[in-house]
């Protein structure tokens, strides 16, 4: 251990301190204004339009919705166990990445068109949230199925053979073999999903027009409504008020996240330690095959449907969007490199803490997500405030601000994804190489780059999608760097709605998604060839 303390700990401490300092300085105006006042107390208790209803609704939706999406994805993935990564069917599985790569505003656009003139999805608040959850499953659940499916291929051959020899039935295999393997990923995806659901905006706004009177308003829409109202007094007053309310929302999210994670952990322990004999049930092969085709159909049919029903007005957009495309590529690359660096040095310096999900590592990850828990409206205003200091005079400065802003905002998600991926690395592997190899470069290659090449590629794809579809920085600097989010948004809402033009933007998003998937398949194919045996050893 002294080896880590001597070499990696200082670098890690420095990196973490730099990250905390950066976040702290960035959010300083927000924390400075976060004070408890009598008005805030009234808002929390007696005001008829207080925060409690949207807050409760958001917490309930995010906890129940995330639980549903993650569990269903896990269950579906378990039925796809027999599909091999390198096989033809395995290649097609990568299409499950499509909805996530398309992003929130494209998803909102696709489902808005699909649900036009339907009745049930809009018939009540409950039906709206049920429909929204299934849309969320389309966007996130399909990605999760894919991640769970890949992850379960990492179960060692010896464990599988053992399970076969002792005669575990299908359900017991799920409990004793698959769930323990997926445990870390489940936790990570639950955290990400809960935060995403808590601050859901594009879909509930564009498709359902969330409002207080229809009991569909979540904290994000409520806060935006307050911001619009307060802005008519003065933008400074609005920011002060947003900081106070945002603080309450952030603390509630933190408590909700922590409580539900502890609850989830407890449930998991009960499930695992419960040695009840589970009924013998093995789904027929046809069931698994049907599940595979249904899943692909569910993923792709919404896209096919809207291209069939909705006219597209083709205009030359690639030139207009070339600058954001270019900057997104740079930013995604930089964000991926920063996240890789952060995840590697932390894994080496904190081997005990970051070897699995445990009480301490959960805190570490939640702390990483703390900045993401700041309400988007507050982050938006903060970004405008910082741009006042950075200035709008030089395009090059703005491009750097754009890139750094995106690296900063996507960092929690990317870093946490890689930290969780690195849980696969055993501590004794690190110790073994520490003893036998002295070069840091060789350690880096052997422990990380060879083993996690596919994970890093996937991180880049995720980073690209996150940055391309991001709404805060893209909004603040949209005057200089055209924003895909803002442009598509304009074709869905407001006074110049034009679905045919919106389809044109969707084509761009779709082309990017297809390129990402092809790239991903190529890398996976290569890595698989090189490390097929290595995977099974891990």
């Amino acid at each position, binding site marked *: 251990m002294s080896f880590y303390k001597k070499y990696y700990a200082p670098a890690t401490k420095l990196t973490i301190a730099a990250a905390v300092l950066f976040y702290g300085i960035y959010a300083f105006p927000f924390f400075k204004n976060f004070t408890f006042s009598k008005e805030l107390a009234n808002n929390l208790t007696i005001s008829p339009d207080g925060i409690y209803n949207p807050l409760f609704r958001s917490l309930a939706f995010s906890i129940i919705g995330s639980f549903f999406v993650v569990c269903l994805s896990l269950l579906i993935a378990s039925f796809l166990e027999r599909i091999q990564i390198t096989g033809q069917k395995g290649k097609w599985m990568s299409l499950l990445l499509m909805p996530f790569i398309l992003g929130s505003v494209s998803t909102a656009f696709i489902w808005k068109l699909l649900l036009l003139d339907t009745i049930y999805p809009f018939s009540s608040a409950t039906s709206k949230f049920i429909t929204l959850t299934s849309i969320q499953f389309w966007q996130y659940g399909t990605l999760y199925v894919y991640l769970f499916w890949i992850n379960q291929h990492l179960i060692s051959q010896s464990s599988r053979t053992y399970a076969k020899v002792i005669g575990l039935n299908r359900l017991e295999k799920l409990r004793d073999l698959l769930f323990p393997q997926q445990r870390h990923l489940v936790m990570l995806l639950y955290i990400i999903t809960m935060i995403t659901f808590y601050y859901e905006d594009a879909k509930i706004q564009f498709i359902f*027009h969330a*409002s207080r009177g*229809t009991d569909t308003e979540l904290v994000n829409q409520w806060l935006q*409504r307050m911001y*619009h109202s307060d802005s008519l007094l003065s*933008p400074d007053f609005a920011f002060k008020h947003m900081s106070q309310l945002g603080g309450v929302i952030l603390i509630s999210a933190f408590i909700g996240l922590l409580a539900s994670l502890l609850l989830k952990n407890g449930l998991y322990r009960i499930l695992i330690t419960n040695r009840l004999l589970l009924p013998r049930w093995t789904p027929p092969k046809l069931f698994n095959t049907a599940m595979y085709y249904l899943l692909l159909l569910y993923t792709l049919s919404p896209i096919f449907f809207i291209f069939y029903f909705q006219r597209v007005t083709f205009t030359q957009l690639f030139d207009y969007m070339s600058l954001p495309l270019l900057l997104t590529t740079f930013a995604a690359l930089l964000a991926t490199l920063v996240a890789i660096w952060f995840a590697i040095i932390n894994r080496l310096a904190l081997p005990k803490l970051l070897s699995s999900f445990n009480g301490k590592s959960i805190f570490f990850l939640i702390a990483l997500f703390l900045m993401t828990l700041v309400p988007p409206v507050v982050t938006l205003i903060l970004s405008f405030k910082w741009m006042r200091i950075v200035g709008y005079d030089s395009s*090059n400065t703005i491009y750097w601000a754009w890139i750094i802003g995106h690296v900063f905002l996507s960092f929690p998600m990317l870093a946490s994804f890689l930290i969780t991926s690195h849980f696969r690395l055993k501590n004794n592997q690190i110790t073994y190489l520490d003893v036998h190899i002295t070069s840091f470069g060789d350690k880096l290659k052997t422990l990380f780059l060879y083993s996690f090449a596919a994970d890093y590629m996937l991180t880049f794809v995720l980073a690209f999608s996150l940055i391309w579809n991001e709404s805060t920085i893209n909004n603040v600097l949209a*005057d200089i760097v055209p924003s895909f989010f803002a442009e598509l948004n304009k074709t869905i809402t407001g006074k110049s709605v034009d679905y045919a033009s919106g389809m044109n933007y969707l084509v761009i998003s779709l082309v990017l998604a297809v390129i990402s998937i092809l790239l991903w398949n190529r890398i996976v194919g290569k890595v698989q060839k090189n490390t097929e045996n290595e995977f099974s050893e891990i």
Partner: protein
Amino acid sequence: MKKGILITVVVAIVVFAIWRLFSHTDKNTGNSQPKIKITILGENSSTIKSMVAIKEQYENSHPNIILDFQAKSFDDAFTSSNQDFANKTGLYDVIMQYNFSLASFVRNHYVYNINDLAQYVPKDSLGFEKNLFLNNWREVGYYYKDDTQPEKGEEKIAYPFSAHSMLLMYNKSMFNDPANRKRYQEKYHKPLTVPQNWEDFYTVSKFFTNLDSDPNKKTYGVCIGGAGGGFLYYDFMNFVYSMGGQVLDKKVGWQGDTNTKVVFNSPQSLQALKYYISLKPYNAGDFSTIDQYETIRQMQSNKTAMSIVWSDLIYPAIHPDSSRDDRFGFACIPGNKAIFVGGAYFISKFTKHPKETFEYITWLKQEHTQVELAKRGLCPASSVTFENPYVKALPYSIPLRESIEKGGVILEAGPDANMISDVITNYVQQAWTGKLTPEVALAEAHKEIEMKRTELFKNIVKK
């Protein structure tokens, strides 16, 4: 070989990337030519699109000027303008905003008033002022000289960029169908015409509603908006004011202070709310998600007889491409009052070029420019523009002018504007779904507006 191709592709991408970045640097900073850039921020609508369409005319006659238009979604334009002012970044020289931003902009000293700017142009170039619809201009472009002493009177702050109203849009073929006319005559003993009073509006809505199980035969009488974010509020206010109701006791939207009386809970407002809800069986689409575009889409489906639409949405709706869609007719909304709203060209106090900016605005307001803009979708704010033969021939021109001249619907435009719109939307939505009775909804809305106004004006005093 493969490696060679890969390297070539990577080099090509890098070269392209560098070229792209540098080409943008020149364009955006304006360093390559000593030109003055005037940046105009506004909601992406037919108004700003018409300005973009004639931008070259101005640039050609003023070679030292570049016009840069930032057309954004409503929310983005609202946030960008407020943040630009709050942070004093001066990104936008002209901010096209609606009446509810007026009070905030003036009280916080963010914008010039017209007196400050008139020195920059010859007096005769402001001759267009006499042709502006004064009632509309006063609503969107005037404010107190001193908001702490309203008795000092009011002054001109900005020129209106357009004059909007809401019009009745109807499906001509449904109204002109001889079979429909005959059936209507037999049933109601009067001819089928575009309704001019609320009683006929209800009857016609009912008449055209056919809830057949076959979706192809299903038709609806009306489409009224019920979505949050102001859509319900604007639709509903037509009914309230037309039936004699009011929200606050005042004459102009931006007037009012902590002492202004809330008068929303009245028999007239109750009548309006009950009437609004009575249209529910005949209303197309899902009420709570009907925004301004959805009403147009419902009309375009050819299965809805009437709707209430914003005038600035009509031009793009009937000109989906280069052709014109003649399926629809337009009329004033029943009753003796009409909404007039729109917004103004606010000139930022942080602009580096107040003279050039004001010159551009006055050019926009000249008669020949107004006609050019109206041909491309602007709803003109000047009466003379409506006399132009081309403008007069637009299918919505006559009812639009009539509505603006009629006016009378006071849309909230003080610091409490968004709050009032939100509260009314909430309670009307609840009354629509039957969660609250109209009486309770109205009483609760009234109480909440009173309570929140007290709180809000306390914050203004504190500030």
